[in-house]
């Protein structure tokens, strides 16, 4: 995973902090009792902590292309590992949000017939994303043993 993914998370977190502060600003203009401040501070603190863990959470992502399946692992608090056989692939998505595009990143998602399958690999640099997409598509085709 590109470390730039952490930037996306930090920026997204900052965005939410700004939204929250703005929200409280609006509320405060009506309510002058000032009881809302502790909540606002707590929220800001929470989001800052979230931003702080961004780097670690990005590092927790990992994927491995094995002979017959793709391994994806992620998560700090709740750790997840998925094994998704190429033979089960139905289609591959490459998606990129506005922030991701600015930083030249993309997310590759492999879809199977099971909605629960978790084969999302975020924060790939553009060329790597295309490479993975093409490789998955090619493998999905050659390894296809029927559904």
């Amino acid at each position, binding site marked *: 995973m590109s470390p730039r993914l952490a930037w996306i998370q930090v920026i997204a977190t900052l965005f939410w902090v700004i939204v929250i502060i703005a929200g409280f600003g609006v509320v405060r203009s009506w309510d002058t009792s000032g009881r809302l401040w502790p909540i606002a501070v707590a929220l800001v603190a929470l989001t800052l902590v979230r931003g702080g863990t961004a780097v670690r959470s990005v590092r927790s992502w990992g994927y491995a292309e094995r002979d017959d399946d793709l391994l994806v692992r992620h998560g700090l608090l*709740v750790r997840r590992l998925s094994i998704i056989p190429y033979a089960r692939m139905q289609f591959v998505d490459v998606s990129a949000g506005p922030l991701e595009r600015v930083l030249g990143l993309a997310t590759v998602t492999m879809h199977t017939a*099971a909605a629960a399958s978790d084969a999302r690999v975020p924060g790939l640099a553009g060329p790597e994303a295309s490479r993975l997409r093409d490789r998955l598509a090619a493998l999905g085709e050659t390894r296809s043993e029927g559904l």
Partner: protein
Amino acid sequence: MTAGSRQRLHPLTPLLKGARLLATGIAVFSWNGYERLGPLHWSLTVLAGLGVAVVVSTAAWAVTGFQVAERELRVREGLLWRRSRAIPLERVQSVDLVRPPLARLLGLAELRLEVIGGKRSEGSLAYLTAGEAARLRTRLLSLVSGRAPEPPASEEGAPTGPPTGPGQEGGAPTGPGQIDGTGPAERVVHTVANRDVLVSQLLTVPTWLVPLGIAANLVPLMSGMDWSFIQVASTLTALVGVAQLPVRRVVSSWNFRISTEPTGLRLRHGLLETRSESVPPQRVQAVSISRPLLWRRRGWSRVRIDVAGYGAEATLRVGTLLPVADQHLARAITNQVLTDACGHRDRPVDVTRLALAAPPSRARWLSPLACRHLGIAVTDQVVAVRQGPLPLFLTIAPLTRVQSVRVVQGPLQRALRLAVVHVDTAGIRLPLIAYHRDEAEAHALAETIATAARAARRGAPAARTTS
């Protein structure tokens, strides 16, 4: 195959989609807004809305493109969140031409690609001219059937049956004209006694709540002595609501018969409306035998089944395989369905012989009651998971239906070195979740299941193409 150049949708698309966007907008704001703004301002607002909708749709249209490359359909779309999707044509179950009224007026059509397990169309090309859509459909279908061993799964997506069965497929759950008369090749295996259905439903928790619900409704009525029409009507509605579930279950399980056909099992049931459902073995994702607490003294079980479909058919799913049965029968029917689903009639599946492995004893810290009942077993044909105690159930899935395996570990579990193994199939009703396995064992299990599933897929009959 020639790699086609990148193509665009029809230039009228933005207008159509814009109109749809606007219609939704009007539906949301309309009457309220109309009253407040007055006719002139209202129509101006609508015009402005239309303008915005068309601009947005035009921009979306400009970045949308599709391409038939090799054996893939590539669709690119999204204004802010860009997405490019590659759909291998082997996986396409059906290609449908859809013509909504407004589009038909303009001579346009939408092309929808269905893949199995998808809740909605995963690939939709809207809009193309009708002629172009028809041509593209023909081309895609020829590519779909080009290398795949099955005939083009266009109309029904009907896969060819296992080698032993004839090619006909009972995919449609309610075959016209087959509701009552049993077909020539059909043999009734079992009839569930209506008395058992009634008694078994009396022994479920929802039924026990009915008298409570009735009492809760009647007491205020009696004490208040307010016999107004509204009062009576609302009480009646509430009573119907309370009693609905058990009554509906009894009604739909009435005269429950299971028969065998060359292609698999067929179920007929219902008091008011006789339903006939076939269980296509190729689409069975999982089977579960459950034993509700109050049924255990009688040794009764309920067998449920998860059958995957796609597109519109996904809603017509068989749910209950046996509303109530003794252990022996429940297991026999389960064995039969699983054997058919695995596709090896010479190697029958036997759920009584599963060697369920219990979780480590420290799992009781997390689930003191359930711990005793948890278990998982992997054979060369199926994977089974047991959970409990309310209700106690065993869910079994053919290994050929396993889509992916996941190991999930929460913070508490990490402290106890435990992990949960999820086995994903295309079904959604009967998830296979093995709780609280030893950490190392969970990873080994995931690996075992992945390997065994691969081996099972390779050994499966080639004609079986659909899960």
